């Protein structure tokens, strides 16, 4: 390189102008890793299917009027048939209709719980991890305190206090959902805080807010997203559990747990009233877990079994 003339871009600089942009390449790489696992693909298909049903629910159900609570007592407890593939329940409602309509409720509730939990947990964990010292102590002891009470019991207590309803149930579950995220984020933030690029930002004179939001948090997003997708299944299960014990969503709103709860009285003679809502819960939990595993493998191949 000559000393007087401005240095010219060297050959090495141009060599990297690859035909495909590298971020697209990274996506393709991730997609490739994801597609290597059959189970992840199954998870993705299940989740996409559920999402499709949740979005189109009211239009694809065979008996839309049953969703809003209309009954047909003449048709009680019909076994699965061509007209009612999943049979009918004690009110003569089409079980397929209820299960399909319930997808929207369950997915929405699960998503809301996870989003709220992740948001609160991320804020608390980030503050604790970044500030350290007594702030960290206080916030973490608070989350430990939460962890001493079993999640379902905690949610039951809060839900009972708030009264029934979808929103209240989401609040009740989310109130106990954040500590897992707080711990995850705190740990990640503490380790990222020591990264060289964070020191570099500090050396530049960047403010704490800038360091936290621009440098640290974007780098801890992937484990949060992975945990969220892994948590979705469990959140749906918790929603269903509350529905089952009658604290959550009340009929006529079709919710899988509540459907299951009502139909347990009619087992085993009218098995179809219970088996299909149960199967729906199973598929949702299973699908999200597989998807979460797959995402973890994509984002963090090192964590693979």
């Amino acid at each position, binding site marked *: 390189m000559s000393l007087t003339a*401005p*240095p010219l*871009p060297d050959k090495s600089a141009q060599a990297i102008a690859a035909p495909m942009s*590298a971020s697209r390449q990274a996506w393709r790489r991730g997609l490739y890793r994801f597609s290597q696992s059959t189970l992840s693909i199954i998870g993705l298909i299940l989740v996409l299917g559920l999402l499709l049903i949740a979005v189109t629910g009211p239009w694809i159900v065979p008996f839309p009027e049953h969703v809003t609570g209309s009954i047909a007592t003449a048709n009680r407890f019909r076994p699965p048939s061509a007209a009612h593939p999943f049979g009918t329940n004690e009110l003569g409602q089409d079980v397929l209709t209820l299960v399909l309509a319930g997808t929207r409720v369950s997915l929405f509730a699960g998503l809301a719980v996870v989003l709220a939990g992740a948001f609160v947990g991320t804020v608390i964990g980030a503050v604790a991890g970044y500030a350290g010292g007594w702030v960290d102590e206080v916030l973490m002891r608070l989350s430990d305190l939460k962890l001493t009470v079993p999640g379902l019991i905690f949610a039951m207590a809060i839900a009972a206090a708030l009264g029934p309803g979808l929103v209240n149930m989401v609040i009740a579950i989310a109130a106990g959902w954040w500590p897992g995220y707080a711990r995850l984020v705190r740990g990640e933030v503490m380790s990222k805080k020591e990264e060289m690029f964070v020191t570099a930002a*500090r050396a530049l004179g960047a403010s704490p807010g*800038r360091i936290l939001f621009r440098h640290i948090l974007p780098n801890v997003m992937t484990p949060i997203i992975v945990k969220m997708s892994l948590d979705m299944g469990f959140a749906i299960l918790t929603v269903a559990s509350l529905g089952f014990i009658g604290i959550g969503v009340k009929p006529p709103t079709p919710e899988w747990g509540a459907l299951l709860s009502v139909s347990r009285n009619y087992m085993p003679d009218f098995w179809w009233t219970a088996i299909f809502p149960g199967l729906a819960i199973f598929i949702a939990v299973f699908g999200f877990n597989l998807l979460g595993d797959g995402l973890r493998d994509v984002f963090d191949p090192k964590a693979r079994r």
Partner: protein
Amino acid sequence: MLVLERVSKEFHGRRSLFSARRTVSALRDVSLAVDHGETFGVVGESGSGKTTLTRLILRLDIPTSGRILFEGDDMARLSAAAMRRLRARIQIVFQDPYASLNPRMTVHDIVTEPMLIHRATLGLDQRSRTARAAELLAMVGLAEQHLHRYPHEFSGGQRQRIGIARALATGPALLLLDEPTSALDVSVQAQVLNLLHGLQQRLGLTYVFISHDLSVVRYICDRIAVINGGEIVETGPAQDVFRNPANAYTRMLIAAMPDLPAL
């Protein structure tokens, strides 16, 4: 330009239930003066206190005793606003070009960030920041089309160029070079050393070059200080120190260096 007067730094270990609090002395009575426009080398092995020294100069840590003066101002006495202005004047290039760039930011964001942080001092709007980033990239031998790429798309040498561009963004007077080439292959190291030398000539920069690699220090530095166990054991013009090392430790270091035989 940069003066350290009897600077010491002690770290306190955690007091445990069973042992008294331990104090580790990382730097002891370090005094040195870096002149305008020179390359001042700080040579030492791992654990010698080099890292502590850079953190003190950047004021990421505060010395236990002693003063650090930059262009005549005692850093400890500066107001917050003056300190912010001073941060724009002292910049650093880090050792590890992989770890020192935020993997989630584009080259554009990395290089313009210092200008954004110091916009009060520099007064650049968005468009002129981008223009300056392109100019900086050209200066370090990269091209404008690299602005919208991410660090992982570059080789080690190219990343180090990005790191240098970032350090130059605020138009600093002093550049702290913390082992800037030790993570690079020799052929790339040679390119980066030449780039640094060329930039110094063009921009009139002052360098503090911290390294354990004696051959690099001999090549690039005007004066050097050898640091061992937190103390400076020898200072002087690079040529003299290498030809006639006065200190036993320096002699040992020079004897141990894996040099090519004179050919």
